[in-house]
């Protein structure tokens, strides 16, 4: 089968995706090596995190990523309606993530946790909040795409915009897949 030269979506988004992934990679490495110097601190405060919430959030993101896959598949067959439905379902899963994660933050903030509390919380808040903002941005992008799909703005012939939004959303998912075990589970 003929393979493609470029990934799906506009290449500009891929440059952006790579830049973002680079930032996350640097933060992951920084987390791991800072932990090395503060193992007990990290192990202790890791226990204050809510692993059930993290599970729900992980499931929410992979599910929504899968929904986005279905959306792209639909638009490739010129099915705008199906595409739109899958996209809004994906956005709903994103909103679910925001609510759960927001609950976690509310819990931590009410306990007086800030970026300056200690090194573990500094990394926990920096990494997850940075990712949290990406979820919001991803939802905004998906919503913009979904609205345009609803107006019949994409078709089987021209749907680069859908693929672009999808690729970005998968990146948001991908980052969380590493974040989840690294911060919540590995000790």
């Amino acid at each position, binding site marked *: 089968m003929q393979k493609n030269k*470029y990934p799906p979506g506009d290449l500009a988004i891929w440059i952006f995706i790579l830049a973002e992934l680079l930032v996350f990679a640097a933060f992951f490495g920084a987390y791991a090596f800072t932990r090395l110097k503060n193992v007990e601190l990290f192990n202790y405060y890791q226990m204050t995190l809510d*692993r059930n919430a993290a599970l729900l959030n992980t499931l929410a993101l*992979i599910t929504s990523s899968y929904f986005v896959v279905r959306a792209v598949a639909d638009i490739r067959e010129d099915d705008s309606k199906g595409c739109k439905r899958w996209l809004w379902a994906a956005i709903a899963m994103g909103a679910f993530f925001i609510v759960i994660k927001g609950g976690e933050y509310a819990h931590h903030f009410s306990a007086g946790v800030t970026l300056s509390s200690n090194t573990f919380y500094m990394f926990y808040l920096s990494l997850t909040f940075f990712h949290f903002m990406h979820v919001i941005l991803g939802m905004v992008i998906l919503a913009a795409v979904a609205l345009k799909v609803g107006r019949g703005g994409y078709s089987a012939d021209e749907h680069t915009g859908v693929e672009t939004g999808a*690729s970005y959303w998968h990146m948001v998912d991908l980052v969380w897949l590493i974040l989840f075990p690294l911060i919540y589970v*590995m000790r």
Partner: protein
Amino acid sequence: MQDIPRKRWIRPCTLVYLIMVALTLVTWGIGMTAQGGLELSLLVLLFALIKGQMVGDWFMGLHFVQGIWRWPIIIWLFVPGALITIAFILSYGG
């Protein structure tokens, strides 16, 4: 990406999704025991890297791409994966 038949893409994606859910549940289960340990940590990391690879290959569709754009996600997973592995091995005195 118009060339890829739906079957060749959606079916693997559904399978990938189910595997990811399963791996996530196992990871969570390990997390809930709060046991830790080098082997378990690296196992969990391996799960994460596998999931990441599946997202890159199937969800993002890089499986159907050839040339340099085939590799960024794989390389990206490898670098932090290696860094985290080294740091954890060191943290266990290895």
